[in-house]
């Protein structure tokens, strides 16, 4: 037990493996071709071969037993590549699900991030268009529903496979009280945050590479200080977001009854840190894609350039849970106590 803010050798290998895999199998053209649904079955099959869908599941259930810190590394590579596979949602859903076909990845699981409405409908479930199994809250209970995925959904900003799903039709299992779902949602927030850090990182790379090559007035536009300073903020936000997601993972994995001593900036409460990392990483991804797109000039606005795909997903992935003010207020309740209390 002592401060160590580097990736472990295992995590370095995981990052290298997944970055290499997505570079080879899912260059941006793959994400582009998968629009508007945002899902590529062939790519998912390759993800299965890699053993990724069950890597966070317990070994006794056939999983890889990876820590949340390891999954954060994987989720970041998903964001970097914007690969059209619902790996983040699936890994989050599997914190409570142990079915063999899910651990193997033959069936896909999704997280209904907002509770079902009075009619038992989970609206706009991320990965809901392609998931065979959805876990979420219906009334006072955490339920799992297995039903046929629609394989289509509303066209949306982030080209995400969203769909409304029923919490009542299909094979329905009650897992327990609604509070049981907290652990799934914490994990979903954390892994989505890590994916957003990946988006920010890729957007930074695209922007930096572009301004090094693009010349105006006879020099690279990246030699202008106004451009440099806009880009210089990005690695700061990315590194900050990465450290925060890893701290949240560390806390969720290792700390029970963590501290929420905000007045001394001493916070080791995993759920609070997971929400904090989502809010921070969302801002980082939005800023990085904003600036990178802008420094592409007119070409950033052109569909044939990749930055616009990152720009849309930065917003899509960060707004699908809820508007950031609502998320911030739920964090405030956890940090400061609720208004009623």
């Amino acid at each position, binding site marked *: 037990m*002592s401060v160590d803010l580097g990736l472990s050798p295992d995590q370095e290998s995981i990052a290298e493996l997944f970055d290499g895999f997505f570079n080879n199998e899912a260059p941006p053209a793959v994400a582009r071709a998968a629009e508007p649904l945002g899902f590529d079955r062939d790519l998912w099959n390759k993800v299965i071969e890699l053993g990724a869908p069950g890597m966070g599941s317990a070994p006794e259930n056939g999983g890889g037993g990876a820590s949340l810190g390891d999954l954060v590394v994987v989720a970041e590579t998903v964001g970097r590549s914007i690969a059209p596979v619902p790996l983040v949602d699936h890994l989050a859903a599997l914190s409570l699900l142990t079915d063999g076909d899910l651990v193997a990845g033959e069936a896909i699981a999704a997280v209904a991030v907002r509770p079902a409405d009075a009619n038992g409908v989970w609206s706009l479930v991320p990965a809901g268009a392609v998931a065979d199994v959805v876990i979420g809250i219906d009334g006072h209970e955490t339920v799992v529903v297995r039903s046929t995925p629609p394989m289509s959904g509303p066209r949306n900003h982030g080209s995400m496979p969203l769909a409304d799903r029923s919490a009542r039709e299909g094979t329905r299992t009650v897992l327990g009280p609604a509070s049981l779902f907290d652990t799934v949602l914490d994990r979903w927030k954390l892994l989505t945050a890590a994916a957003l850090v990946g988006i920010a990182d890729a957007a930074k790379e695209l922007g930096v590479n572009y301004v090094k090559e693009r010349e105006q007035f006879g020099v690279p536009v990246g030699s202008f200080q106004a451009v440099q300073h806009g880009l210089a903020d990005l690695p700061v936000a990315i590194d900050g977001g990465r*450290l925060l997601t890893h701290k949240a993972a*560390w806390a969720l994995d*290792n700390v029970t009854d963590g501290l929420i001593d*905000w007045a001394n900036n001493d916070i080791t409460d995993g759920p609070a840190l997971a929400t904090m990392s989502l809010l921070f990483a969302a801002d980082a991804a939005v800023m990085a894609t904003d600036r990178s797109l802008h420094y592409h000039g007119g070409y950033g606005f052109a569909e044939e350039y990749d930055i616009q795909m990152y720009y849309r997903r930065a917003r899509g992935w960060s707004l699908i849970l809820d508007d950031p003010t609502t998320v*911030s207020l739920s964090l405030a309740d956890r940090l400061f106590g609720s208004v009623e209390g």
Partner: protein
Amino acid sequence: MDFSLSPEVVEFRDEIRRIVREFVTPEIADRMHTTGVFDAPELNLELGRRGILERACPGLGKGDPIEMYVMFNELEKAGAPYDGLAVALMIAAVVNKLGTDEQKERIIPSIISGEALVCMGYSEADFGSDVASIKTRAVKDGDEWVINGSKMWTTLAQVAEWLILLTRTDLDLPKHKGLTMFILPMNTPGITVEPVHTLGTEITNATWYDDVRVGDEAVLGGENNGWRTMTTVLAFERGVMGGTNAGVPLLRHFHEWAVANGVFNEPTTRERMARSVIDMQVATLLTMRSAWIASSGGMPGLEGSMTKVFAVEAYQRASRWTQATAGPAGLLQFHEEGAAGEGFVEYDARHSPVMSIYGGTTEINRNNIAERHLGLPKSR
């Protein structure tokens, strides 16, 4: 990654917290703001007496190198005056790294006992960010050096025992190469100190040097090697010696006021507060990263630039919204009836602007990141 402090470091931190509770009284904070001297000799002496300064000083410390970060973070979060200690420990670390054995024996004990402070003479009236162009001259005269010129922002010169002074020693070499750093006692004849009052209460100084005579024993880090000596000092400063969590006491002061005045149930206040708590946490993680790099034997210069850019703007954001949310009460100063956060909300709005200037401006830091991290061409 592992974010837990080792049991030894936790013990060290708890000892500092005990000392802070005993020594960082409202009277000390009051004295800072009435005298303009951001230093508490009784706190320094206690930290020295208990061996904490020696333990925290990079290169000297017998404990985990992360303890320096822990010490300054605790002092900063508590709102303790630590500016004097930060400079002193930075200089002790540099003397230890670059000084002669004689200098180490003569200078370091006075600092780590908490008795002596050090002031820094780098900037001049005409040279701030472009510090490599400074004009203060040191000329060899037999066995002695004769120093003439003037410095600006020589904070704590009125109370410091030592002065670290950047001079030009060779006019023929390129501007970064002809510099030499000296470390000399402040009571050396020929030094004059004039106060400069600032927006943030702290009194800094302009200092003049008229035929100040010192021997070779005052040269720190070698003749014409002053740039390297200075960048070594800055690498210690940027990031881990405070200056990255100044918003934490502000949020505490603001929260007390907001709860007492029924403002804290407002959703906008709660959202802003939650956002600032996230900012403070990220700032401390970036700081911790620099400390961790240093503890692994690296020099976190670039990471320090990154930390400072983020942490300072986070503090300035917090200062802006807390003052705005407090409205008229955010305008009232210390000891005025009804002042938000007992006057700290108003004070921080005056103090926060300096943070993006001293120790390397935000623009210089962004240049650094653009060139050294992103690999963009030099822009000037």
